[in-house]
């Protein structure tokens, strides 16, 4: 077996322009480590993104990549996976991109169970547009577009993913890069749709490192990730933000498998037969 590739092999020559200390650096590093660990060939990886600071991601990788449309990374990645089923497709984006403007796409990616790894870098804020509240900002957050406090409560991404029946659901923290890498490896191996919420602080507009250091802890070692109800109960505990794999169901066929099965039922025809049909 050839030597394991190095994480840096996956790095492009574009230097990330995130602010020093931005949580997204750790996500990039962890994903490259996961690629190396799994010995993925660069030319078999596509990283798609939406729009936001986090969505600058594909540029920094020497894999195939596409910087898409704000909120549309899941349909984009679905198209890529159906167009090139043999590639590993990773979708990345922010909390605004994924849970606000793009929120409507998550249940459908879940229903299809397309074989995608979706990494949401959740900084609880709109970083790129300079600090307006996002759908995971805490209620009452005071910032530029909420001078008297945001009136909406935050949504709970893990709970949502579990209720949409996403087949692999995990939460990580960019302050814990080793654990993040391990989860990404499992997610990349998962044969279906995986959603990983990475708590990834924005040091410039909403620095939550101290807060997350305090309230995060690993999922109880007794947790059985095939037990969806137990996962839901743990997701409901928001004062403690549990880290790790909440839920995984590896037995569920992916969209590709189901599609092949359904297509096999359709009467097969040839191009020649179609032309013959047109003559009549």
């Amino acid at each position, binding site marked *: 077996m050839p030597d394991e590739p190095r994480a840096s092999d996956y790095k492009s020559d574009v230097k990330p322009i995130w602010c020093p200390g931005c949580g997204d650096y750790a996500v990039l590093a962890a994903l490259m480590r996961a690629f190396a660990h799994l010995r993925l060939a660069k030319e078999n990886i596509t990283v798609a993104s939406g729009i936001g600071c986090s969505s600058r991601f594909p540029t920094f990788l020497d894999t195939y990549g596409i*910087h898409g*449309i704000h909120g549309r990374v899941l349909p984009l990645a679905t198209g890529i996976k159906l167009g090139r089923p043999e590639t590993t497709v990773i979708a990345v984006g922010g909390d605004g991109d994924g849970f606000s*403007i793009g929120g409507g796409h998550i249940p459908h990616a879940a229903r299809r169970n397309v074989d995608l790894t979706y990494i949401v870098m959740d900084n609880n804020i709109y970083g790129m*547009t300079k600090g*307006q509240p996002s759908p995971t900002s805490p209620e009452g957050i005071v910032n530029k577009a*909420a001078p008297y406090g945001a009136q909406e409560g935050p949504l709970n991404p893990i709970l949502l993913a579990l209720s949409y029946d996403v087949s692999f659901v995990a939460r990580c923290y960019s302050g814990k890069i080793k654990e993040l890498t391990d989860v990404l490896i499992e997610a990349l191996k998962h044969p279906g749709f995986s959603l990983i919420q990475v708590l990834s602080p924005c040091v410039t507009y909403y620095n939550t490192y101290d807060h997350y250091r305090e309230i995060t802890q690993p999922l109880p070692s007794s947790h059985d990730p095939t037990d969806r109800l137990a996962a839901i109960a743990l997701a409901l505990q928001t004062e403690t933000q549990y880290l790790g794999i909440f839920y995984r169901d590896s037995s569920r066929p992916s969209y590709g498998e189901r599609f092949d099965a359904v297509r096999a039922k359709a009467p097969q025809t040839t191009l020649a037969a179609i032309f013959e049909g047109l003559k009549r």
Partner: protein
Amino acid sequence: MAKQLLKGNVAFAEAAVRFGLQAYFGYPITPQSEALEHLSGRMLREARVFLQAESEVAAINMVYGAACCGVRVMTSTSGPGFSLMAEGLSYIAGSEIPVVVVNMMRGGPGLGNIQPSQADYFFMTKSAGHGDFHPIVLAPASVQEIIDMMGLAFELAEKYRTLVLIAGDGSLGQMMESAELPPMQPLPALRPNWAVTGADGREPNVITSLYLVAEHLEEVNLRLQAKLADIRQHEVRFVEAQTADAELLLVAYGTSGRICTSVMRQARQKGIKVGLLRPQTLWPFPAQRIGELCEQVRGILVVEMSAGQMLEDVDHAAGGRVPIRFHGRMGGMIPMVDDVLADLQALATSLGLAP
């Protein structure tokens, strides 16, 4: 009211409040977010409605809903967000309700960049959604004019029960300029009689864009077209400068129009007799006046921050009577006075008008 130094985005937002804006729904996007940020505090202090929506699709539908209730309402955005609003704009036009939308155009297509552009001209004037309609499109060229046009936008929207778009560009939104805001105006005392306000004691008002019977929809289309004809006849606005003796004509709007004012001044100093027509309404377009000027001038130079979109309307208005040249910059680039002047001089020389 005294003049003060104001940023374009803050100026139009504050002007809207003073002209009686009752509800604002929007989604952050550069180079327009300062408007949303200004209104996030300002509207609450006035006990009015502000909401940051989950997307531009949501924002325009919230606007649609509030407008149906007879509330003075608006949103603001830039290119990619404006694209997402197109579906709602078409329904709003079909439902004939007054709505104001500001689009601070940025470089495109696609994500493009956040630099100024005028490349949404076709989209805004001719095809802001499916179906047969035109919004009124206003084109300010200074911070003062954005302020004044905010008032005009609400007035026209309500007078005609129509969609009014303000075609700004990134540089107008971002620039700081001395300007005067209007005094605070009282909110409308009554809701309009067509609005959905609760039908207790009267016939219900129905607001819809759905007409399943072809004959009925055609009647509605004809009524809409009659209204548009009325607007075309009465609401054309433009600024004309030094056209009395002009042999050449510059046609440009917004930021390009400002640049052409400088071009005109310098050309005049060189002895080139040039005038300027700056459309303030892009729809309805001042085609008639351009046509009249074609009887007098020998050539036209159109300047835009696009590949030449308004150019088609100028071309149509001129009807082949005089040669038309074009100077355009794209991708967020702004035309330079010297470059436009050089093209103008070349046009003058080609027509034998060089001094």
